[in-house]
Structure formats: C-alpha cells, structure tokens
C-alpha cells in the first residue's frame, strides 16, 4: 500500500511535530550537548526497530520518516561539534563526533536485530 502525496505529507508532518516536541522535552531535562547524543541514540534505536518491523508504508512515514527523523538531529549535532572545537579544542569535538556515530550506529543495529529476532 502506498500513501497518496497528501496523506504522506500529513503523516510525516504529524510524526515530525511529535518528534520535535519529544526532542525538546529531552533537551529541557538533559543539559548541553549530551541531550543531542541521547536523542540521536534513542531515535536511531527506534528507527532500527521500525525499519525491521513488518509495518506498512503509512506507519513507516509516520514513525520512521516523521517521528524518528525529526526526533534525531544532524544540524544541532554539527553546530554543537563545531562550537566544541572552538571552545574546548579539537580533541573534545572529535569525541563528540565519534561518540554520536558509535552510539547511534550501535543503537540502530540493536533495534533492528531485536525486532528481526522477535518477528522471526
């Protein structure tokens, strides 16, 4: 089943609004750059699970493209890493860059493996 362009827009938009609000809520509770690491790892885990789950394109647009896509962020990560480089040095920035990648990659693979296992 393929969603019409209008339905796809609505699904991605609503998922995106929920994802952005959830990210904002995490940002209020977790201080500084760590909040970006937290949302990127959690959101990648969720996207791994969503992409391995036997769901239709409707749910994939809402949860995957919309929610997980918006909950995680590259722009805040990039600006935060560049600022870390100028404020605390290149080594600190490299740590931020590497830890985001390692955590998100591991989380994505874990999420997809867990769901693939349980779906069988």
């Amino acid at each position, binding site marked *: 089943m393929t969603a019409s362009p209008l339905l*796809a*827009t609505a699904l*991605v*938009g*609503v*998922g*995106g*609004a*929920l*994802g*952005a*609000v959830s*990210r*904002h809520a995490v*940002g*209020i509770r977790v201080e500084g750059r760590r909040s970006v690491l937290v949302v*990127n790892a959690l*959101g*990648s885990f*969720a*996207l*791994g699970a969503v*992409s391995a789950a036997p769901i239709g394109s409707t749910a994939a*647009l809402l949860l*995957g*493209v*919309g929610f*997980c*896509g*918006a*909950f*995680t*962020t*590259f*722009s*805040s*990560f*990039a*600006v935060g*890493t*560049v*600022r870390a480089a100028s404020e605390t040095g290149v080594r600190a920035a490299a740590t931020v*860059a590497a830890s*985001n*990648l390692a955590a*998100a*990659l591991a989380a*994505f*693979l874990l999420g997809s493996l867990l769901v693939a296992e349980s779906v069988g």
Partner: protein
Amino acid sequence: MERTPYGFLLVALGGFLGAVARHAVDVGVGRALAASAAGAGPAVLGDPLTGAGTLVTNVAGSFALGLLLTRASSDRLRLFVGTGALSSFTTYSTFVADAVAIGTPAGAWYVAVSYATGFAAAALGLAIGGRDRR
C-alpha cells in the same frame, strides 16, 4: 519561554514544517537522480541514490542553524525555526540507516563526506552570522 505551552507549540509547528520539507527534498532529489540515471536501467537505480537527499538536507540545515543561532535575537524564533524546523529538517537516524544500507566500504565514505560537509556548513553559518557581531 522554552518550557511554556506556547514554546512547545512553536517547536511542534516548526517540527511539522521541517519534517515535511525534508521528505519533499528526499523525494525530489531521488526523482532528479533517478531521471539523470535513467539510461542505466532500473536494476542499478537503488544503490547510488541512497542517502543523497539526507545529505542535502543535513548540510543545508547545518548551515542555516549556524546562521540562525548567531543572528536570531528572540526565543520564539530560535524555538520555531531552530529547535522546531531546522532540527527536524535534518536527521541523524536516517543518516545512520542510510550508511548501514549503503554498506562497507562506501557507507564509511558516506559518513566521512556527511561529517566533513556538515561541519564545514555549520562553521560557515556560524562565521557569517557572527560577522560584525560580538
């Protein structure tokens, strides 16, 4: 402002627009690349296109966020455009999923190019926005 219901509403509206715009760019870039590669036949169309749209939105969004954070004077603007729209326009989860889908070794190059261009774009946005400012 950022903890108020109005602040959350601004983030939600921005998030709606940012996610929709990201999806539109993704579909648009995919179509453009598919059209330019049409001669190659449908069997090879899948792989070289993976991640192209995400790369475009991540680099453009990083530049715009650098610019916004150095220029925007109001909390409303930061919440609506920054936390809401630009942060949702860009994505880390799809970036990682695309890198995995591309596989090794090309996926590692995709990560390296995304990081290099994304950081350069953010630095450029911060530099342009910070010019003539404190």
